């Protein structure tokens, strides 16, 4: 006779302790205990809010030039100063968050949309498909990230959409390789064998049983790749291959700032600081998520 059905057994003092916690809830509980990760989550949310609310919170029009306010140092009227044609740096930094975040998130979504299915197929089907995809992944990873992104953006033509595509394509092999590795590990697990034993079709096993279990590490990688993608977008825009003028992006702001370093250093300091804070926040959040989602942790 099991304990639970023992007659006259008292209710356990902490009934909640026996309720099975969902993986998402457990991860959130563990993430909340990490001050650095929570702080970075707040920073990320603030940046997202800035990007979404840019038209309402930016004090000036980010493209409005003013010849009476050229390269003015930070002041009460312009908190972060003005640039070489008198545009407000704060407004441009706020609007720049749109280009950076959009590039970070959309390019990672592109990479996931292409990489996860390919990784699932490679890991699940195996054989020649796996070998061919493996060599293709090797080949793409053999070309340094930024150089491949620059080459792709250059051949596609310079604009923000193409920069996102270039970064997304460049980041795809990371997700192919990660998904494949996770699938290989999951394939031999008991629950997958059980699903196979009861006669589930392959697609159902791949989508319903394997995919949910490989998602946590992919989520961690996605967060860290957003950080890489934000730097990549800033780099491409810095080179003139991303966001085109007059719309602001942190990278292109740094490009024009370089010409006025001696006269207007604030033009270089703030957009760079914005990139740094955003990338740092995503990196710390990614590290925190990794710990929170680790099944070995408590």
């Amino acid at each position, binding site marked *: 006779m099991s304990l639970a059905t023992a007659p006259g057994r008292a209710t356990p003092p902490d009934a909640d302790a026996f309720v099975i916690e969902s993986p998402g809830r457990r991860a959130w509980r563990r993430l909340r205990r990490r001050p650095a990760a929570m702080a970075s989550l707040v920073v990320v949310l603030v940046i997202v809010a800035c990007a979404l609310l840019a038209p309402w919170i930016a004090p000036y029009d980010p493209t409005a030039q003013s010849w009476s306010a050229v390269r003015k140092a930070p002041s009460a009227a312009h908190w972060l100063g003005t640039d070489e044609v008198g545009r407000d740096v704060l407004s441009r930094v706020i609007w720049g968050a749109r280009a950076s975040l959009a590039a970070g998130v959309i390019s990672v979504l592109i990479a996931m949309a292409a990489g996860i299915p390919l990784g699932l197929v490679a890991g699940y089907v195996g054989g020649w498909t796996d070998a061919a995809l493996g060599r293709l992944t090797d080949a793409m990873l053999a070309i*340094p990230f930024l150089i491949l992104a620059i*080459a792709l953006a250059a051949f596609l033509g310079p604009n923000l959409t193409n920069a996102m595509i270039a970064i997304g394509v460049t980041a795809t092999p990371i997700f192919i390789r990660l998904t494949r590795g996770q699938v290989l590990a999951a394939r031999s697990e008991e629950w997958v064998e059980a699903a196979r034993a009861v006669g589930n079709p392959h697609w159902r096993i791949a989508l319903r049983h394997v995919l949910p279990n490989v998602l946590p590490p992919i989520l961690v990688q996605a967060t860290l790749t957003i950080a890489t993608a934000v*730097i990549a977008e800033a780099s491409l825009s810095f080179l003139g291959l991303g966001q085109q003028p007059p719309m602001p992006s942190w990278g292109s702001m740094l490009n024009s700032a370089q010409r006025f370093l001696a006269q207007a*250093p604030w033009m270089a300091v703030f957009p760079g600081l914005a990139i740094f804070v955003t990338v740092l926040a995503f990196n710390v959040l990614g590290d925190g998520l990794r710990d929170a989602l680790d099944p070995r942790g408590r």
Partner: protein
Amino acid sequence: MEGIVLQLIGKRLVQLVPTLFFVSVLIFSLQHLMPGDPALVMAGEERDPVVIEQIRQQYGLDRPIPVQYAMWIGNVLAGDLGESMRLKVPVSELVAQKLPVTIQLAVMAMLIALVLGVTTGVLSAVKRNSAWDWVVNVVGLAGISTPNFWLGIMMILLFAVHLGWLPASGYVSPFEDLGRSLATTIMPAFVLGTAIAGVIMRHTRSAMIQALDSDYVRTARAKGLSERTVVWKHAMRNALTPVITLGALEFGTLLSGAVLTEQIFSIPGFGKLIVDAVFNRDYAVVQGVVLVTATTYIVLNLLADIGYILANPRLRA
């Protein structure tokens, strides 16, 4: 056991062939991403249909794509990477001219990264969970999150504009004037080096923690060896193998980083070559540079793997 080592190396070499093939296909296909007729792009300002037709024939653009690939790869294997449309110089010549500059920069950067990364990594492993460990970790994470072109701009602001200690840009060859060469390359090398010092630090720290917890270190301590000998001779020697492998892989990051760093410091290296080529729509140069970079990276990767196999006593014994 020599046989196993040779077998492993042989297997690794065989794997290289399909990878290199895919890399070449990828780079070849780049030009087909271009919107419009490549012959028109190559013609540039020229609008004479006769000239355009001539270009089409010269580059085999009127032939089927697999034939075009075969022609291209045949030339590449013979050492012909095409010709720069703007400078009218063979791409291989340009590469040979610019590569040494970037290699100088990369080697200096790697030295800076290894010195910074390994010493801080070892110290924070030895003083695990101390305030020092925390500071090193935070600085390391900040280093990884700093876009290196921004760090470059900030260093120019401080050391060239404000203090006037170093030149803001330009390059002097070490064979011409070693002192001035170092003065022009120290800032970009530092910028590049810090980008990977953080990664090296993290790996050194975890490898050292593992080594310090191992039985042979406990034995060395039990023998009464000084802590210094235990850390720097016994633990470090074993912890360094993965770090050196990683160093070889990080050369790819250095080549990527060099693109922007050279742009900021106006250093006429490999990175500047590709950026200038992109803006002048000099596609043969872009393809050539990407191909050389990828091949270099693959070869370094291979050397790192072989080094790892040779350094592994379990395979050598």
